[in-house]
């Protein structure tokens, strides 16, 4: 039988050559494919947003100017914001502008969108980034401890907490945190934002409660997911058996083998969460009076500022699309099976 194997033709291995790797590498192909997929999604997102917002009954110009405005005034405003044009035409105008970096001007404050975004993006970014950092930094050790002794005391307590935490709405949690830390104990500011310009300490202090309100449900979710995945792997994956058969310690098996493989699933989950989390800033920024993008969106909705609403809805969706894109790429870069191609 061994003789036969020597005579079999060897299948050429393509895609593994060190030189040919960059150009035709599966990684580059994958990134290009994902980017190409993202473009129609972004277009679809903007078209859908335009369409949904065009369903608003009544005339935004009339609503803004009030009942006393003359028809001429209304007409002038309609013309200024191109509201007298057809829907598709307005969309094309917007798209042309957006591609040139011009997202239009707020109908209420007369500020350009770009200047408002520039003022506010950092707040939302800081909030989301802090929420991710805090939740992941807490979830990984808790999940590891829980998975080390499944069914143990720590496991049970952490699972009970995360099941409960998952059922708590973030606005309820936010109010609870305010009630406890700002009203009862009064150690942290309840609302308001202190910019980074006034020092990192005060800035972080003003972000503690909003961050916790966003991070706690996320922490529960990650703990639950990671713990479940780790336990599954420890019980059913063959490479965990191999690792144990080597005689290495249980923590090393958990960390080097189970967690290493779970981390890929975690990346996907985190990527999917970015969109939801950014959307969640709307309510958290409202409760804590943080001057971020979410608050701007809500103000736009309440003042019927169509330009602001439509731009921000598209921006939020675009963030989610880009986050998923980024995760796909990151996943490909980190996972050797994709990086080096697979059978």
């Amino acid at each position, binding site marked *: 039988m061994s003789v036969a194997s020597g005579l079999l033709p060897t299948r050429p291995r393509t895609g593994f050559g060190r030189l040919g790797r960059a150009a035709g590498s599966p990684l580059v192909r994958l990134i290009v494919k994902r980017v190409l997929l993202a473009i129609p999604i972004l277009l679809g997102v903007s078209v859908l947003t335009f369409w949904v*917002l065009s369903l608003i009954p009544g005339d935004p110009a009339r609503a803004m100017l009030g009942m006393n405005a003359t028809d001429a005034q209304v007409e002038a405003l309609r013309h200024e914001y191109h509201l007298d044009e057809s829907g598709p035409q307005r969309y094309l105008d917007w798209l042309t502008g957006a591609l040139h970096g011009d997202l239009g001007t707020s109908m209420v404050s007369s500020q350009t969108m770009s200047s408002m975004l520039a003022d506010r993006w950092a707040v939302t970014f800081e909030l989301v980034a802090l929420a991710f950092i805090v939740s992941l930094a807490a979830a990984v050790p808790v999940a590891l401890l829980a998975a080390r002794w499944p*069914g143990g005391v720590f496991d049970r307590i952490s699972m009970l907490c995360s099941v*409960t935490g998952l059922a708590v709405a973030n606005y309820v949690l936010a109010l609870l945190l305010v009630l406890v830390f700002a*009203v009862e104990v009064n150690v942290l500011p309840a609302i308001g934002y202190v910019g980074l310009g006034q020092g990192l300490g005060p800035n972080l202090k003003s972000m503690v409660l909003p961050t916790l309100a966003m991070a706690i449900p996320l922490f529960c979710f990650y703990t639950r997911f990671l713990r479940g995945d780790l336990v599954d792997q420890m019980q059913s994956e063959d490479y965990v058996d191999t690792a144990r058969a080597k005689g290495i310690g249980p923590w090393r098996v958990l960390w080097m083998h189970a967690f290493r493989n779970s981390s890929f699933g975690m990346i996907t989950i985190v990527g999917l969460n970015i969109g939801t989390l950014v959307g969640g800033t709307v309510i958290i920024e409202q409760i804590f009076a943080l001057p971020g993008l979410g608050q701007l969106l809500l103000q736009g909705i309440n003042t019927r500022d169509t330009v602001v609403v439509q731009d921000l809805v598209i921006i939020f969706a675009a963030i989610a699309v880009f986050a998923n894109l980024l995760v796909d790429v990151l996943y490909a870069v980190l996972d050797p099976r994709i990086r080096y191609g697979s059978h």
Partner: protein
Amino acid sequence: MAVIDASSAQLETALAATTRPRGRWRVWVRTWVPAGMVVFILAICFLGPVVLPIAKPTGGDVLESGLSPFSSGHLLGTDSNGNDILSRLLYGGRASLEVGITVNLIGLVIGGGIGAISAYVGGIVDTLIMRGLDVLIAFPSLVLTLAVAQSLGPSKRNTIFALAFFSIPAVARIARSSTLRLREMPFMQAAQLCGSPWWRILLRHITPNIGPQLISFAALGMGIVIVTEGALSFLGLGIPPPAPSWGNMIFDGQQSMSATPMEVVWPSVALLITVLSFNQLGESLRARWSGR
């Protein structure tokens, strides 16, 4: 050798089961306690106001505002508008559950239908539908519902529309992936070879197979929808006051939170228990139906 391999590997199944040291009673508890809670919540919200002697949720007397719990006729007291809190809690729950159930039914029927048909038909239709769903899924759910709710104006019906908007693509995706898996099964090919029409295959073969998975997902979806409905109402874009909903009760209570925290606590606790029950029911159904 195939004969040996194909023999029912009883020990393997026994081993797989023993790795999860769970007693039968625990499985029972995990399924039936949340199920009982859900039934209880449904019963008390829909039948409670009819059966129990409870004041109306709206049009309270300002003179009776801020009554403490256990005052006469008001078990949980009254809010700052003089409305009975218990009554508002039950009617608010009714509104939340109505929205949740309707949205999930819409999601199941339309989303499930789209997903199953998309996977069954395949080809360019499938690709187009999936790209369309990708667009819907790209929106953070709250942002999309905010935009839709603002366009349509706050009302219960519009809240349902807005929430269904993001419920449909999620269900559709699950239905699609399950149907894709089913399509490869021999019995499906047998049905096709027998000449069954496509709608019959969808109804008789695909629906019963993907149904359990979709229903357990819908139970989990109930929690999400109820929380999001609360968020919309909290932001004033959901169920318009004075009609009660847990979301706008929490918002109303928030105004005077330091003085009367219980006005926030009651709807929050109701929300927590309801979402927890649906989540746990969904989890246990999923565990049961995925054969774990």
